């Protein structure tokens, strides 16, 4: 077992912040309470004895067993000590899937968290630019890597092709759009709703009004 787990337990004594730890195939896995995640990762990153300076990967796992919570996986590596540690967070699927972003700690988390948001629907609070990254932004079938998402998508093939062909390939090609996309989460709810229906970029016709 990786000694960093003991150090974590020692440093975060209060209220079960550090959950169980186990070893699988030689890798050490430690569970951390969701609210404590940024602090725990910061401790692992900046403490000289820990020195986990390299964020290898951020991803999520949903199990086939619907009862099990969704897990976020943070794979850490220390370049100097050549040590590996996998930090996991459990998110209850019956509640909102929200967690604090770790982009302030590692810039690498930016796109990785966007991918988790896109594929699993986990929202990262404090992320500078949380948008879909692989699917297009008006994609409305859901989050593809969730277990309740069918392999071929929710819509029929003809509906998928129709929506794809009616997508605007020039989205994001104006200053207004770019700033809207960046400020997406600060927008009023009704505007967000209209944007989600792909009403972006239309200039109202002055003659009809």
């Amino acid at each position, binding site marked *: 077992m990786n000694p960093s787990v003991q150090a974590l337990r020692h440093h975060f004594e209060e209220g079960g912040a550090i959950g169980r730890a186990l070893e699988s195939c030689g890798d050490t896995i430690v569970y951390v309470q969701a609210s404590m995640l940024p602090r725990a990762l910061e401790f692992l990153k900046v403490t000289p004895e820990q020195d986990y300076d390299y964020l290898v990967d951020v991803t999520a796992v949903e199990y086939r067993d619907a009862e099990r919570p969704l897990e976020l996986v943070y794979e850490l590596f220390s370049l100097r000590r050549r040590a590996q540690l996998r930090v996991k967070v459990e998110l209850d699927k019956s509640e909102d899937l929200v967690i604090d972003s770790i982009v302030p700690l590692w810039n*690498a988390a930016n796109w990785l968290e966007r991918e988790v948001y896109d594929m699993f629907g986990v929202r990262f609070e404090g992320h500078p630019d949380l948008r879909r990254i692989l699917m297009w932004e008006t994609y409305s079938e859901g989050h593809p890597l969730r277990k309740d998402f069918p*392999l071929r998508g929710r819509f029929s093939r003809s509906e998928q092709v129709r929506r794809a062909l009616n997508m605007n390939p020039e989205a994001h090609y104006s200053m207004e759009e770019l700033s809207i996309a960046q400020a997406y989460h600060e927008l009023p709810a009704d505007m967000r709703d209209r944007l989600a229906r792909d009403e972006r970029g239309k200039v109202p016709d002055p003659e009809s009004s």
Partner: protein
Amino acid sequence: MATRRIEFNLATTGLDPQGRAARLPLGVADRGGVGILTGEDEPQLGGDHMLVNIGPQHPATHGVLRLVVELDGEVVVRVIPHIGYLHTGFEKLGEYRQYNQIVTLTDRMDYLAPMSNNVCLALAVEKLMGLDITERCKVLRVIACELSRIISHLVWMGTTAIDLGAFTPFLWCFQERERVYDLQEMWTGARLTTSLTRVGGLMADIPDGFESGLREFCKTFPNTLDEVDVMLTRNAIWCARLQGIGIMSAEEAINYSLSGPMLRASGVPYDVRKDRPYLDYESYDFEIPVGEHGDAYDRFLCRFEEMRQSVRILEQALDRLPDGPINVSDPRVSLPPKTAAMSDMEAMIFHFKQVMEGIETPVGEAYLPIEGPKGELGYYFVSDGTAKPVRFRVRPPAFINLASLAKMAEGHLLSDLIAINASIDIVMGEVDR
């Protein structure tokens, strides 16, 4: 205010059946295909920033990458990469496939270096199962990894040279690639989509003539490298276009989790082959080239030297190639020989069970990184004890390296953006998966 009426014909069909414009150029209101520009709407060329859209279909973006670039004159103010144009759903599809069936998916992920992807997948599943593979298999997999590294860097070098205006290295690089393709085809039957590995071994042993062919390649390939070296390394244009371009300091490179030549060019000597050895890489004698400036030129030098080191590894691997089986003897993992399956009842049952039900892995999870040509390529499997993974995740080096493009390109010229993008060595199949 003077109103000007501009009629224009759209190059696209442009009109929907109601006669309304379906897709209009930006800045033009939807007025039935006729744009009205008032004096206020006229573009102000003075100090305004300009948006340039590059891609998704563009010869210099190395695939279907789309970059929206905000320019102040010719200087890049910011770059917004849009990816996902090649999102295929590998990770979802992998959850519906048995482990050996996923091998075919990995070919098509990083299609510039399919064999190293195959090897990484097999190693990850073997780590999950706690399997020890045979000595011969290990050496053959090292050969596969290093051949992949060479052909991936060759494509990178050829296409980067084209981006920067030199066509000849592309032809030389592809000529060498064809020779490796011949070897791959000899071994696996396919030029590109090799599907080389199986859990616990390989799909086939190397055929007669492969060893001598590879030795011949190792002997003559450095000559081509020398030619490219003469052509590029001290070329004034090449240096001017690459030196001091897209600099990442060591701290930034670690903060962005860069890996592979991108990280090493910034002076961080992290190579998975040395730091987290797999396939007995610690017993081979080779050097890790490390840059000091962290610019595009150092990345070129790192990749260039890596090819020479790969040739060294290939020669050592050929020298030590032991005899013996390539597959583990466990009948639940590797298929019995065809003759045994046809004549022996037990072998036939194992054959049937493996083909129909797949290989069952114990409950657990494993992350295994290898040093792919693009960087740290990792496969992460979560198993619930069945023959299909609960989660199949690839740690894509090109995806994570590409995330730093916006940081690197800021403040450079538009033409340097192309050089920086080329220096990352992306492959969109892996970025988007």
